[in-house]
């Protein structure tokens, strides 16, 4: 039975995924095969300056780190939207595309301006003067 | 002049000996002999005079006694006082770390190397040797005390 036209296109996607997977896993597999193994009691332990780590790192961390994570997320998604723009850039009206991207990125960078004014980026030193 | 204001300050404590030393031979201007119990008072008096604790150490002088040696000097004026306090073995000496916080580590080191305990010390633990060490190396009877073979730690 022949594969319907629409489905055969998906074979390319399959091959593409397989190649990507191999490309990623390849070095790991090769390294596993040809690299010498190192073994020792504390080989997999956390490296902390040669000392066993004290307590666990999964604790209540200060909230300011959460703000940094949000800022990163905003710009990560922003890059996602730029990919399609990349393909269509410069085909038609170059100036129009340029203005649109600057507006898009400008609005997003308002986040940083706001965070800067609210002092998220300045680490206040608790001045201790005896 | 510190040379006479320090003896005046130490007079009320009626210490054993407070007399000028021979600087060219021993490097100290004032030599004081006191008992360990009087040490916090001596430290307090010298702090009022503006002296800083230069060094605090112990000497295993005889079978029966250690000698605690304190050196005090002054930033603005050249006057070094050395205080000797002989301490019978296995007795405790009072700490002076509440007067001079710098003495905290000195006393921990003396405890670590000599085994002299300091009463009232905030956290008297070993400073230089590993926590599980059992020896006090600078005591004169040290090598016989624990047969130490310089081999890899098990």
């Amino acid at each position, binding site marked *: 039975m022949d594969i319907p036209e629409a489905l055969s296109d998906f074979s390319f996607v399959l091959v593409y995924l397989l190649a990507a997977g191999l490309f990623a896993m390849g070095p790991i597999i090769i390294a596993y095969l040809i690299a010498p193994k190192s073994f020792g009691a504390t080989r997999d332990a956390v490296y902390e300056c040669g000392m066993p780590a004290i307590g666990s790192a999964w604790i209540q961390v200060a909230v300011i780190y959460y703000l940094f994570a949000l800022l990163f997320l905003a710009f990560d998604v922003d890059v996602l939207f730029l990919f399609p723009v990349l393909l269509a850039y410069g085909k038609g009206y170059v100036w129009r595309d340029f203005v649109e991207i600057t507006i898009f990125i400008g609005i997003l960078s308002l986040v940083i301006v706001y965070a800067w004014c609210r002092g998220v980026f300045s680490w206040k030193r608790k001045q201790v003067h005896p | 002049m510190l040379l006479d204001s320090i003896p005046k300050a130490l007079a009320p404590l009626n210490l054993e000996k407070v007399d000028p030393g021979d600087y060219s031979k021993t490097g100290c201007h004032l030599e004081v002999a006191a008992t360990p119990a009087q040490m916090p008072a001596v430290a307090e008096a010298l702090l009022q005079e503006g002296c800083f604790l230069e060094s605090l150490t112990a000497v295993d002088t005889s079978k029966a006694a250690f000698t605690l040696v304190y050196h005090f000097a002054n930033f*603005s004026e050249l006057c070094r006082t050395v205080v000797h306090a002989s301490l019978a073995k296995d007795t405790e000496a009072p700490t002076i770390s509440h007067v001079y916080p*710098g003495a905290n580590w000195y006393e921990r080191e003396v405890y670590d190397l000599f085994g002299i305990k300091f009463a009232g010390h905030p956290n008297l633990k070993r400073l*230089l040797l590993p926590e599980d060490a059992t020896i006090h190396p600078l005591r004169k009877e040290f090598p016989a005390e624990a047969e130490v073979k310089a081999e890899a730690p098990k």
Partner: protein
Amino acid sequence: MITSGIEEKTFVLNLGPQHPSTHGVLRVLLEMDGEYIASAEPVIGYGHRAHEHMAENRNYHQFLPNMGRVDYLHALAFNHGYCMAVEKLIGVTVPERAEFIRVITNELNRITSHLLWFGAYLMDLGAFTPFLYCFDDREHILDLLDRITGSRLTYCFYRFGGVPVDLDEDFIFGCRAFIKRLRSRWVDYHNLVTKNVIFIHRAKGVGIFSKEQCLLYGITGPSLRGSGIPYDIRKSEPYSAYPLFDFKIPTGANGDIFDRYLVRLEEMEQSCRIIEQALDKLPNGPIMAEKVPKRIKPAAGEVYQAVETARGEFGIYIVSQGDIKPYRIKLRVPSFANLSLMVESFKDNLVADVVAILGSIDVVIPEIDR
């Protein structure tokens, strides 16, 4: 505000023995909440090599090489202190030319120590280039000192009663050329670092030592002079040939990292001045005292000799009971007292500042652990 029983937890971090910014094997247990330090406890002893125990079963000559290995950055000052203490015990006076040679080599060694601190400290703060600049200068001094002492780092050059090797013309010419070259480098150092905005923001107003803290903890050396107290053993308790030279004691205004940095740079300049004056007024004459006893057997007694090293006051306290071996030697090392202030000065600082403050007091770990 719902707290639902989540109490504020702190995170314990090892600024451990193997860490690029601890200049050796110092471990600091940092208890942190977020970026701020709740409490810091330095743990030392990883470099303990039992110098004082070795002193008790060696005679006076055999303990001399140890002195170069206690503080290997300014080894000649430790040699100087030990030799002067023993000379006081056995009553030997050193001829004048030997004193001059001791001062010249001592000051050269102080410059190498400050140069190395300059390179290593700025590498802690993230700048790699000054490290290469200062090691280049340092190699010139090491060539000079290598010519007459024979070693590059752990010097064992002074003897009881004088100096074994005399300076020759090449050394004096090399010294003058080196000082001229080093003076031309100050412009680079100041442009490269002192006017660097990042360094200024990381150094100004951080890690302030107040005068009371310095008095209570017994801080000495550039760390103390950064807080404005001009206490320098070469001036306040003149020894060797230092009274014959005039040099300034640089002090800082408010005791932060920037002041300590400037004090050390200025001290290098003062050391150059001392060396120049010593080279100009170098008297000729013997370099070794006539009758130095072959076997050192000092009378019973004790001596305390203080000497100014690059990190502060090194005091050596020798108790002798008339034996050829010292009964007890106590080495009062400057970094031991300087580091004990860290427990108090790290509190409520950022983690990045901990590295900056630790580097600014220029610690050498085997010197602390002895």
